[in-house]
């Protein structure tokens, strides 16, 4: 089915919806990395490069949104989604229809190392009222999510990846905001994953299948609002849950899953796979292995959970 980076799919999608006069795109000296160059060429009047000034970009986006536009403020997740106080005051508290687009999320970016790896953005934004969080795992899901977000009411954070990920959805996939997707059914253990960890979880499920273990894979493309019902159902059905994210487990998807299961009072075992430290330089494969995010390491986590 091929592989594409979700940031590239975003760049394509924003051009396709660019005919809508409400769409405005902003960036901070990163139109190449965020793939917004094609939009800049097609709609120069609705494209603004504010320079390396992300707080300003967020505030300007809020002002555009409060005047009826749908601005997409694009930078590395580390530099825009992590600019928390500005997101809080200008965007969230104003309930401004800003789309915060953070590319290069997680350790998956590789060589650039820790300073460029957003690993706390989901946790931070999850604590802000009003802001939806969407993390698609492949090209078609990104395209459909962008189309959805054009008309979404309220601020939203779109978390995208630098590295390519295998395509798992068909082109006619229908994206349902707030509803987790069961990509694979299973009864022994459930992977609750988001972004590129969806593909790694599918890989883990295939490894486990060969060993006679049946694994469910839940794609949590919308981290907020969380589809707690689907997660609780998976916990009930399988009794063992592994949350998987390229992000810090504290307050991220892992935190959200723990909250959902805890509040529902389901007796399930949970292992949170994700980061517990800053990242470092290396290739995506080396880092995913080192930090337990690879399909093989996820399968290993399932095995030890099953043997407990």
């Amino acid at each position, binding site marked *: 089915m091929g592989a594409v980076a979700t940031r590239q799919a975003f760049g394509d999608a924003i051009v396709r919806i660019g005919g809508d006069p409400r769409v405005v795109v902003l960036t901070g*000296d990163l139109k190449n990395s965020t793939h917004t160059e094609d939009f800049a060429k097609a709609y120069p009047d609705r494209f603004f490069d504010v*320079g*390396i000034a992300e707080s300003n970009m967020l505030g300007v986006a809020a002002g555009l949104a409060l005047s009826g536009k749908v601005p997409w403020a694009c930078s590395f997740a*580390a*530099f825009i989604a992590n600019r928390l106080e500005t997101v809080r005051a200008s965007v969230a508290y104003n309930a401004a229809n800003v789309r915060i687009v953070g590319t290069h999320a997680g350790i998956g970016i590789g060589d650039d190392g820790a300073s460029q790896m957003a690993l706390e953005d989901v946790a931070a934004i999850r604590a802000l009222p009003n802001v939806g969080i969407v993390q698609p795992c492949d090209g078609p899901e990104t395209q459909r999510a962008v189309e959805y977000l054009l008309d979404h009411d309220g601020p939203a954070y779109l978390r995208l990846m630098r590295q390519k990920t295998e395509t798992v959805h068909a082109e006619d996939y229908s994206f349902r905001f707030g509803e987790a997707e069961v990509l694979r059914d299973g009864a022994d253990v459930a992977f609750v994953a988001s972004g590129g960890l969806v593909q790694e979880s599918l890989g883990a499920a295939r490894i486990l299948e060969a060993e006679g273990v049946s694994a469910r894979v839940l794609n949590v493309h919308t981290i907020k609002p969380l589809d707690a019902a689907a997660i609780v159902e998976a916990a009930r059905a399988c009794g063992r849950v592994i949350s998987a994210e390229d992000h810090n487990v504290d307050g991220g998807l892992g935190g959200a899953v723990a909250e959902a299961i805890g509040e529902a009072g389901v007796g399930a075992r949970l292992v949170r796979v994700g980061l517990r430290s800053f990242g470092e*330089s*290396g290739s995506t494969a080396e880092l995913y292995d080192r930090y337990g995010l690879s399909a093989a390491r996820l399968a290993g986590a399932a095995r030890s959970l099953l043997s407990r």
Partner: protein
Amino acid sequence: MPHATDAPARPDVQTLRDISRELRADIIRMLVEAKSGHPGGSLSAIDALVCLYFGGVLRYRPAEPEWPERDRFVLSKGHCTPALYSVLARAGYFPRERLMSFRKFGSPLQGHPDRTRLPGVEASTGSLGQGLSMALGMALAARIDGSGRRVYAMLGDGEIQAGQVWEAVMSAGNFGVDNLTAIVDCNQVQQTGLVRDIQDEEPLAAKWSAFRWNVIECDGHDHAQVLDALDGARACRGRPTVILARTVKGKGVSFMELDYNWHGKAPSPEEGERALAEILAGESSPAPAALRGKGDR
């Protein structure tokens, strides 16, 4: 007790030029080996860094990196690690061979500087716009301690578009910290184009001086001029100094010069050979003439 390397004695300018040439070559070799990284801003910054570290200015002890009375250097434009690491290796913080581990899994030579992994790095940076504030904090600490420590920070001309930089500029001016020196590597190019096309900043000298800074402009590839500027900074009382080092992004490799495509891309082995040939054969004292010209808008 005085120490031989607290501030290495100032050699003649030709020696500094030769060091720059060596380190430019190291920068290219590291990038080719790593297959990723930032050549443009490393090549533009290297001459000023050579003057700072090897021109008898910065006081430091590679064998005692935590020596409390050392001067501090903060690389605020953290992506230019190839320049910083080549300097730190030559200064003796670690063996030169280690440069070849740049950006590799497990290496202390991270893509961006990490002070928790590499002695000699004073501040972990990589998110642009924050280094001058940290440097100001270090300068204030020296003042509180009644110490003669000096603090230097290098910023990019794209980086100074960040609002926090101007917050630091204002407060440093108001605090009158004369032990703080900012070096802006004005190489005219940022990641995706010319600075003046993305967000024009000129006139820069007027802006800094309006915030009560002592402003010195120089050709940032002319070692004699950079040394004069650094001496001027040390001589200035009551105000922080900014050195606006007028430079060329990618300096020394003709096909990289002033081309934003070489901001964050490593040369292939073949391109690396061409770059090395130019650097090693080339005039080691770059001709400054046509640097700017149109820069005053």
